[in-house]
């Protein structure tokens, strides 16, 4: 019963790409502006934290501090791109611009609109991660060719964060309410997912919470192994966690969205 309410399979056709293309076309109209943040962000963070603060920090697991946080910056960007695209971005299109209403007046269904939005969130994550990867490579902090796998990982992680975001968008009463998921979920992940220091230094219960519940912990772990070039089977559980989230949240978000929009 519960499963039928919230996990009803979605009806998706290739029309989903028409929604994706609408967002891509809108994005490309201002691409220079859109490419500035993923380009400048790692530069600023690496200079301030990696090479500034990093002078005072000893190597972590045998890795200099700048090289330790470089993959975190990419992983955080995957989270931000997927999450913000499908919270504020999707909410504005849904509520203020009525873009969803306009599209579902055509043969495209609401399932496809939501799926297209999430795929676009995943794509933005991959775009931003690619740009950051270039910057980090220029700083000499990425091992090649293993680092190239960061791009497909970014798509997958973006899919996860975008669909979690879409669940929030389906549930919030208004646009200001996004403060709740941001301060209860996104900011804690930014800080406590093994991003700027290993979670092993945290008290045991917090470590467990971070490993079990915080999606970013898993993304950071995999990204770090890729950019350091030390890929091993130890990240299998992390990849399984991400894949499971990608199986659950997109379907859940489409069902929640239908409850919100179809009356």
């Amino acid at each position, binding site marked *: 019963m519960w499963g039928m309410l919230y996990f009803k399979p979605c009806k998706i056709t290739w*029309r989903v790409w*028409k929604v994706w*293309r*609408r967002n891509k*076309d*809108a994005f490309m*109209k201002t691409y220079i502006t859109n490419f500035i943040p993923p380009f400048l962000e790692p530069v600023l963070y690496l200079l301030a934290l990696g090479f500034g603060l990093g002078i005072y920090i000893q190597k972590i697991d045998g890795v200099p501090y700048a090289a330790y946080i470089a993959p975190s910056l990419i992983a955080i960007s995957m989270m931000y791109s997927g999450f913000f695209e499908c919270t504020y971005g999707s909410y504005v299109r849904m509520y203020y*611009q*009525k*873009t969803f*209403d*306009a*599209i*579902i*007046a*055509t*043969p*495209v*269904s609401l399932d496809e609109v939501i799926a297209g939005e999430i795929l676009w969130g995943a794509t933005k994550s991959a775009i931003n991660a690619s740009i950051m990867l270039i910057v980090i490579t220029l700083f000499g902090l990425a091992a090649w060719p293993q680092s190239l796998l960061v791009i497909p990982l970014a798509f997958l992680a973006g899919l996860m964060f975008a669909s979690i975001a879409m669940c929030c968008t389906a549930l919030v009463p208004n646009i200001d309410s996004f403060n709740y998921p941001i301060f209860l979920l996104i900011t804690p992940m930014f800080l406590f997912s093994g991003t700027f220091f290993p979670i092993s230094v945290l008290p045991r219960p917090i470590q467990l919470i971070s490993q079990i519940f915080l999606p970013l912990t898993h993304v950071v772990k995999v990204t770090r192994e890729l950019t350091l070039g030390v890929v091993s089977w130890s990240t299998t559980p992390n990849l399984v966690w991400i894949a499971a989230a990608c199986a659950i949240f997109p379907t859940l978000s489409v069902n929640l969205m239908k409850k919100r929009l*179809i*009356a």
Partner: protein
Amino acid sequence: MSYVVQAMNLTKKFGDFTAVDGINFQVNAGECFGFLGPNGAGKTTAIRMVCCASPKTSGELKVAGMDIDNHQSEIKALLGIVPQENNLDPDFTVCENLVVYARYFDIRKAEAEERAAKLLNRFELSDKKNAAIETLSSGMRRRLMIARALINKAKILILDEPTTGLDPQARHLIWDELRKLRREGISIILTTHYMEEAEELCDRLVIMNCGRIVTEGPPSSLIEKHVGKEVLEVEGNSEVLSYLQRNYSQLDFEATGSLIQVFAPELERLMNELLGKFEIKKAILRRTTLEDVFLKLTGRRLRE
């Protein structure tokens, strides 16, 4: 005669509230069909079900012979929908709005660009083709909405209050276009609370009140049936009213505030009689309109 829309016992409930209460109507191919009614009468809910935007609670609804529950994409491919609120895409220019929208209907780019150019020309928007949506006047936005609804060569055009909030020039331009489209064989369904608009455009209409259809027919026969050809309006006091009640109780009259309306044939004699007997500030003998029918059937009570 083939029907483009057929509704039988169509019902829509929101929780305990019944917005559309078992209505029956048919729209013939090629006609302009109107839904009239005060706010909250259920017009928008009714046409939203036809547009596949809102699932019905019960009853039957077929569009172009297809059941609404099982053929939504096929039905929507035939429809051109202009909702009450404009939802043009502010991220794109005027022309891009049409081309991007065409994509949702699986129209190839070259074809879409050709159709867009023709539609912009038809709706006098060619000069604005590279303009941002926010720079358009409300009349232009409305025209662009209609142009966009036609990008798929819609067979059935559905408009929810197409001219609300427009100035008379913009309104007449839209009326002209809608008449042309009807002549080209497109079936049109619209809701409005402008009686003039309904009289100008609709071949047939229904008047809704509280979720039900209260009457149905061509505008002229509705007028004839419910209010006759003429109405006498007298601005009079209670003396006039009681005089009418005493001597003309067989006539159909209504009093609202100081205005007394008498619906009957050959009212000139009565008007002269009243003018002779009482000191009356104003008395008008005029042709009846659809508005008289509307107010008679749905009452004068304010709806909010």
